[in-house]
């Protein structure tokens, strides 16, 4: 779905942004007439539109940032109180580290630009972002001459907030038993090298764009990251969980599932709503401009899909489990959001509802399935992000105008790559430094074990099964 030149020019002239989301191909192609100075540009006819486009992406960045609080709260709410400090710490670390490594390496590895590839359309070396601009550089990076309806800084920080997400997804799946330092090393490597590499294949203008286009007449379409963010994070989690093993006591000798209860439903709800709130920026900002038509359409499809997901998983859990399940409904909302994220820009309203509804049902069964096969995912990350990311990407080939085959190739290759490299990394970490805390520490909690702190010192907490 590489944007053809004419479209691109429109885009630059009107800041119309294009449906082509995070696709940076803009950078690769035609550069418009260049203003003499930033001041001249800001005095010119495009300045106001450029300013509103740029502003929207920055606001969207703030919204994506707050999703990290959403992850932190939903993950700690769905786990035990004795591991709360540990989970919160991991979330703080991941967002801080994730953005920094993206500044040092990831951004340039993910968006190499036409000449930047080391292995063409497959791999590019990264490197630090610019420190600051002066003289002519200002025009070429701070005006539409940059090839986007926003500045270089805006482009970087918006992408950076996305980058931090993938590892956060894994953080939830491996919670309550992973060694802190091991996780930190793993997350560092995943965020720095693996995430940008996969992203470069599509958003960076790599083979999922050009090659697919020429082979199938359709580029791979992943509007805002059902594949590059969510499926990536979800399947990377699966690999980690497979190596790490389930939490002690999760599965009884006789194979029965012995649920380990999340300790605070309000935290879960806060997390679910904050993630939804952030999604306004996650998808809305992925329009890559404030184009009224596209942004309003994307926000309608996104929210309706999320709401349908929530409704459907509420009712499905009610039917299947005989009780309306709160955490499932919240997972369902997120499932709907993950599902629509690939095609929010190309699906109609009712298709969006259908995508969300199916995602909402899928997530309930996926959670039960992974329990059945003894994959212990305390927060349902694999189900929400992996399964529904996969579903959402394919849905573009069903409801949208995309090609099912291309969508399958895209999400398949990225998911496999995420799984394989995560497996390799995690295995490496396991053999070198070990990945699991001792049974005693798991028993008494990672908060005291890893941090020497308690999350709720004033509260009387119940022992196991009390």
């Amino acid at each position: 779905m590489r944007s053809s030149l004419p479209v691109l020019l429109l885009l630059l002239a009107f800041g119309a942004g294009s449906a082509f989301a995070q696709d940076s191909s803009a950078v690769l192609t035609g550069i418009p007439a260049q203003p003499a100075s930033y001041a001249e540009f800001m005095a010119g006819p495009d300045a106001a539109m450029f300013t509103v486009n740029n502003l929207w992406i920055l606001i969207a960045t703030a919204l994506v940032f707050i999703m990290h609080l959403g992850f932190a709260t939903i993950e700690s709410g769905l786990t035990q109180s004795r591991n709360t400090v540990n989970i919160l710490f991991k979330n703080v670390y991941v967002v801080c580290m994730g953005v920094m490594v993206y500044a040092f390496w990831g951004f340039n590895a993910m968006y190499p630009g036409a000449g930047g590839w080391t292995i063409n359309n497959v791999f590019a070396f990264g490197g630090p972002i610019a420190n600051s601009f002066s003289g002519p550089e200002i025009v070429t990076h701070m005006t539409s001459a940059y090839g986007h309806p926003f500045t270089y800084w805006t482009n970087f920080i918006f992408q950076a907030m996305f980058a931090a997400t993938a590892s956060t997804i894994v953080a939830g799946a491996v919670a309550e038993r992973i060694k802190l330092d091991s996780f930190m090393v793993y997350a560092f490597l995943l965020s720095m090298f693996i995430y940008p590499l996969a992203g470069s294949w599509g958003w960076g203008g790599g083979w999922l764009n050009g090659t697919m286009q020429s082979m199938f007449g359709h580029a791979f379409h992943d509007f805002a990251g059902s594949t590059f963010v969510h499926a990536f994070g979800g399947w990377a989690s699966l690999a980690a969980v497979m190596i790490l093993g389930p939490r002690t006591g999760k599965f009884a000798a006789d194979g029965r599932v012995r649920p380990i209860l999340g300790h605070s439903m309000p935290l879960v709800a806060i997390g679910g709503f904050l993630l939804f709130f952030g999604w306004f920026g996650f998808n809305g900002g992925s329009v890559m401009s404030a184009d009224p038509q596209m942004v309003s359409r994307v926000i309608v499809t996104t929210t309706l899909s999320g709401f349908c997901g929530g409704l459907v998983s509420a009712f499905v859990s009610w039917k299947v489990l005989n009780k309306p399940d709160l955490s499932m409904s919240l997972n369902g909302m997120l499932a709907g959001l993950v599902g629509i994220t690939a095609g929010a820009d190309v699906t109609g309203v009712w298709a969006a509802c259908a995508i969300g509804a199916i995602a909402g049902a899928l997530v309930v069964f996926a959670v039960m399935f992974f329990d059945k096969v003894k994959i212990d995912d305390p927060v349902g990350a694999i189900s929400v992000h992996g399964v529904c990311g996969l579903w959402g990407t394919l849905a573009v080939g069903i409801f949208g105008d995309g090609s099912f085959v291309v969508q399958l190739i895209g999400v398949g290759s990225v998911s496999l790559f995420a799984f394989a490299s995560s497996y390799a990394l995690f295995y490496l970490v396991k053999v070198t430094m070990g990945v699991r805390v001792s049974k005693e520490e798991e028993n008494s909690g990672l908060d005291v074990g890893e941090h020497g702190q308690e999350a709720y010192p004033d509260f009387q907490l119940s022992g196991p099964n009390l």
Partner: protein
Amino acid sequence: MKLVKAIIKPFKLDEVKEALFEIGVQGMTVTEVKGFGRQKGHTEIYRGSEYTVDFLPKVMLDIAVSDELVPKIIEAIRSSAKTGKIGDGKIFVLPIENAVRIRTDEQGDSAI
């Protein structure tokens, strides 16, 4: 002196307290406990998996009284704590050899 230990259903606490108050009980100590007995726990469901809660919330009263008061107290607790449903709880009577009121150093019956 005796220590009357009563395990009752939490929502009965107020009634029992009133009943004891009426027969002149001046003080008691209450502990939140979990009970395991003939009354079976309920089944709950969490993210698709069932599990049973064996231990049910109960309230335990420790009441130190002079010997002669014991029957009245047992009677008061029984009548006020009873619902007739399984899980109503138990009363145990243990001997106390001595009691002291920290504030006044009073000993024995006068301490309670």
